């Protein structure tokens, strides 16, 4: 884990340029909000920022050396003045924020500098967010806060206004596909992987993962069943889907894949054949596309997105999928 300054600069040049200038001019803000899609290197950037601040002899004044004891300890999570707060279970609780505040009411262990990182800051409970507010507002001189989120619109506006927002640009799909191909991924798979994740390592992992290959097949099969034989859809759910997609994360991935099918169908209908990601299944998809209308496809996509949202709200997975399948069939000839 952990990328070096150069590696991260390759994917987030703007962000790192900003860090460089702020550090050189000693103008670091007291609180940053890192927003951007999954896999855009937000967490790595926060660690880099920590290392730049704490490194004993940074190269050129800002690049962490990665060899001094402070850099090493930040990498292994052992630095006493760098705190990383992650959701405890589903959300960040008020008590976590309180213990953080307690921690920061004291002086640093080794120096006056302190830094804290809140990962998934959007998952703070309302109480937690409100207790963080005052803390963000009155920072001690040498304290730096980094809030990391994938969904900045879900955070309190009062928190957003107290942080300097830094956007992490997602890697463009074309670039991602190219990189995947360079890493020896099957060219037919690359576009799909690029859509699923923005993180190169994660994509590479998926490309060699049996579970993922199987998942693709099951999702495609589910779509076909819904299309051709609606009565059997529920059975297919029980037989294949629930056996394969057990964890919440996995179901989320499954829904992503399902969404991509509808996206492809839409692209085919709109004549943007080059955007299609299911290259292997193209002929079959073209057939399906003929049998559907644009309006229906958008409705179906809405249903999948709705299901994704409900999944995050802890809906029972079985009921969720059954409801989704019924919705996908809506408007078809029977039921």
């Amino acid at each position, binding site marked *: 884990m952990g990328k070096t300054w150069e590696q991260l600069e390759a994917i987030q040049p703007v962000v790192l340029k900003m860090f460089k200038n702020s550090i050189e001019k000693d103008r670091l803000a007291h609180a940053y909000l890192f927003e951007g899609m999954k896999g855009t290197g937000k967490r790595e950037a926060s660690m880099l920022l920590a290392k730049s601040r704490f490194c004993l002899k940074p190269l050129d004044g800002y690049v962490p050396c990665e060899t001094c004891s402070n850099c090493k*300890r930040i990498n292994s999570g052992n630095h006493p003045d760098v705190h990383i707060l992650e959701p405890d279970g589903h959300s960040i609780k008020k008590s976590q924020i309180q213990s953080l505040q307690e921690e920061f009411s004291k002086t640093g262990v080794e120096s006056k500098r302190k830094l804290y990182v809140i990962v998934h800051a959007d998952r703070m409970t309302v109480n937690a967010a409100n207790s963080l507010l005052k803390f963000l507002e009155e920072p*001690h001189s040498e304290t730096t806060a980094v809030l990391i989120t994938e969904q900045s619109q879900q955070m309190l506006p009062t928190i957003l206004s107290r942080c300097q927002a830094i956007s992490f640009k997602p890697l463009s799909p074309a670039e991602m596909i190219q990189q995947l191909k360079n890493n020896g991924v099957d060219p037919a798979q690359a576009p799909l992987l690029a859509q699923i994740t923005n993180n190169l390592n994660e994509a590479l992992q998926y490309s060699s993962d049996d579970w993922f290959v199987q998942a693709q097949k099951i999702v495609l099969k589910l779509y076909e069943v819904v299309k051709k034989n609606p009565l059997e859809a529920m059975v297919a759910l029980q037989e294949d889907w629930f056996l394969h997609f057990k964890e919440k994360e996995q179901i989320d991935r499954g829904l992503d894949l399902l969404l991509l099918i509808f996206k492809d169908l839409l692209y085919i209908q709109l004549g943007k054949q080059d955007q299609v990601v299911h290259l292997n299944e193209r002929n079959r998809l073209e057939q399906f596309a003929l049998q559907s209308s644009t309006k229906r496809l958008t409705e179906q996509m809405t249903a999948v997105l709705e299901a994704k949202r409900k999944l995050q709200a802890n809906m029972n997975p079985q009921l969720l999928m059954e409801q989704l399948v019924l919705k996908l069939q809506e408007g078809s000839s029977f039921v």
Partner: protein
Amino acid sequence: MKFIIQRDRLVQSVQDVMKAVTSRTTIPILTGIKIVASEEGVTLTGSDSDISIESFIPKEEDGDEIVEIKQAGAIVLQAKFFSEIVKKLPTDSVEISVENHLQTVIRSGKSEFNLNGLDAEEYPHLPQVEEENVFKIPTDLLKAMVRQTVFAVSTSETRPILTGVNWKVENGTLTCIATDSHRLALRKAQIETNASESYNVVIPGKSLSELSKILDDNNDLIDIVITENQVLFKAEHLLFFSRLLEGNYPDTSRLIPSDSKTDVVVNTKEFLQAIDRASLLAKEGRNNVVKLSTIDGGVIEISSNTPEIGKVVEEVQSKSVEGEELKISFSAKFMMDALKALEGSEITISFTGAMRPFIIKPLNDESILQLILPVRTY
């Protein structure tokens, strides 16, 4: 690293440093004890990042060899397992050696443990002690000062600075002040120092309670060093570090009234017991309120009334009452805490009106002072 050490000394040191180790920490390395072997002896360190305790085992003491150092070095071992292991080892001597790649072997008699260690480089660096800015104070005086102030710190985290005790060093005098904004405890003492530096720091109340637990009762001198972000207490072979609280302590000097309208002198024990009795009924009511009023002939009346339970009235003969008549209500708990912290058989209570804070002092002793805010009753 390789050394052979007497087991009882190791057990004692491990027990001392274990007081600083907690299992609930976000920093993985702090679940361990750091062991450093050098030419002079063995140093053990435990920390929860708030407080750190360092215990030193010298190579020799009174001509007896305690540790035999074969090779210097450092390692961090899981505190939970290491402390249990050393407690239960079969023989009086223990050999600890680090083999290749942090693998640590603990041998005693015929038993042998292999423990996976952690890299000692990862352990937090404690501040280096500078010997010049030291001041000294006897252990029992230090413990008394902690006991007499630390009870008054705030337990609420809304104003974190008040969860600590304010230590001021000026002109050879150490002043400790603790307040939770309803009461205040102040204690002064002379210290031995050769530096003319003055300090003003706030030490977390929890750290001070821990400190007084770990110190023995004797009147050996303790060295105290205050650095930028930590305070260090140094006893023989034992170093206690604590972080400080960040921020400025409120100015308390103006809170303490200089003149008084009513002065009461009472016997501490009698008064304490009377308050204690009155609080029996007051406990059920809000704020633990008891009422004090002066009546003729130097008698003071202590009463408490909770309509749904009952009431209590008690008269205490005071040594002297001077000044205006007075009726005042206050928290019995605060009063008892304050009285327990005071030394001396007789105390002076100086009131400046029913709505103003009052101060309690031992008779003829200026070094300690307790201040309590009254409770408004109608």
